[in-house]
């Protein structure tokens, strides 16, 4: 649920990065954190396990100054990818304004991608949102790896809504800001 603080000249949106375990959700946020000037990003909160898997969520606030002293703030969250962290995922999805679904492009990861997408659909319903209408973009990550499958094949399996999709190598920053811009476009109502 976005908050438009007219008095404070600020509008705040919540965006969740969803996808299977180790698909690169945290890597997206880390690249954003490392790239934007310090005044535009807040503290990067990572609540992970000893094996660097997100246990609860990661949180990164990003602020973009606009004209007339207005600013727009995006609270970027990642959800834990593993199926058994179902409860943590739902608490992140509560009140979300937009979702980035990050898929792992490797062929052998397709079952995990599909399982994660099914969980997203179910979890959105359980927090009172509808997968069919929630602002959504897709990111096909890890495009640099040798065993990836064509983006058309990923789209055929995953992109049932025909939303905007971006190829990415999040580790190197490829496609990271294009993806963020894509979801920002949707939540702010530009497209």
């Amino acid at each position, binding site marked *: 649920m976005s908050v438009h603080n007219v008095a404070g000249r600020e509008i705040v949106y*919540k965006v969740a990065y969803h996808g299977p375990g180790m698909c690169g959700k945290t890597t997206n946020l880390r690249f954003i954190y490392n790239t934007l000037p310090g005044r535009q990003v807040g503290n990067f909160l990572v609540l992970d396990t000893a094996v660097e898997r997100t246990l*609860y969520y990661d949180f990164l606030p990003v602020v*973009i100054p606009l004209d007339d002293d207005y600013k727009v703030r995006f609270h970027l969250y990642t959800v834990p990818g593993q199926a058994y962290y179902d409860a943590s995922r739902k*608490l992140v999805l509560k009140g979300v304004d937009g979702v980035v679904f990050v898929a792992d492009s490797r062929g052998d990861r397709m079952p995990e991608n599909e399982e994660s997408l099914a969980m997203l659909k179910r979890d959105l319903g359980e927090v009172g949102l509808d997968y069919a209408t929630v602002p959504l973009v897709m990111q096909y990550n890890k495009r640099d790896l040798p065993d990836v499958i064509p983006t058309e094949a990923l789209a055929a399996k995953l992109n049932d809504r025909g939303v905007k999709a971006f190829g990415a190598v999040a580790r190197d920053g490829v496609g990271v800001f294009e993806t963020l*811009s894509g979801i920002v476009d949707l939540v702010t109502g530009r497209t």
Partner: protein
Amino acid sequence: MPAKYVELKAADVELMEAELRTLCARAGAEAVVLVDLSGVILAAHRVSDKIDHLLFAALLSSNFAATEELSRRLGVTSFRVMYHEGKRQNLYFDKVTDDTILVVLFRDSNALGRVRLFTEKSIVELAKMVTAATRPAGEAPPLPQAHAAAAYLEQVAASIQPGKL
């Protein structure tokens, strides 16, 4: 577009902050914060600048959301109150509306009953204010400036060009 949103005009914020001031004084609290369950502070009173407010709100809201999920899985009526007891300071959470919570920070020298009593009184007023400020997305006023955010990020993407696929 988001499903619904909260629009806070100056008068709304003043009313909420006045209620939080009153609560703070009556309950003898150190700080009070009204948080949206998506993790955004709607109003606050006496929250220290030493605390990162954005992280504070994100952690408070997810903490409460986790408890709600727990109650759902246990099949019990949704918990509306939560209490964390610390060594010197305590946190008291109470649900204001389906999407907002009130969190009171108070010292252990203060009685929980006093905090609870005045929090419950304030919640009635705050719930009216939050409900009045909540709008369905269809009523969202145009905020054309917000569109500039995507254009800015496109520029960032173009400027870093770490490599093409």
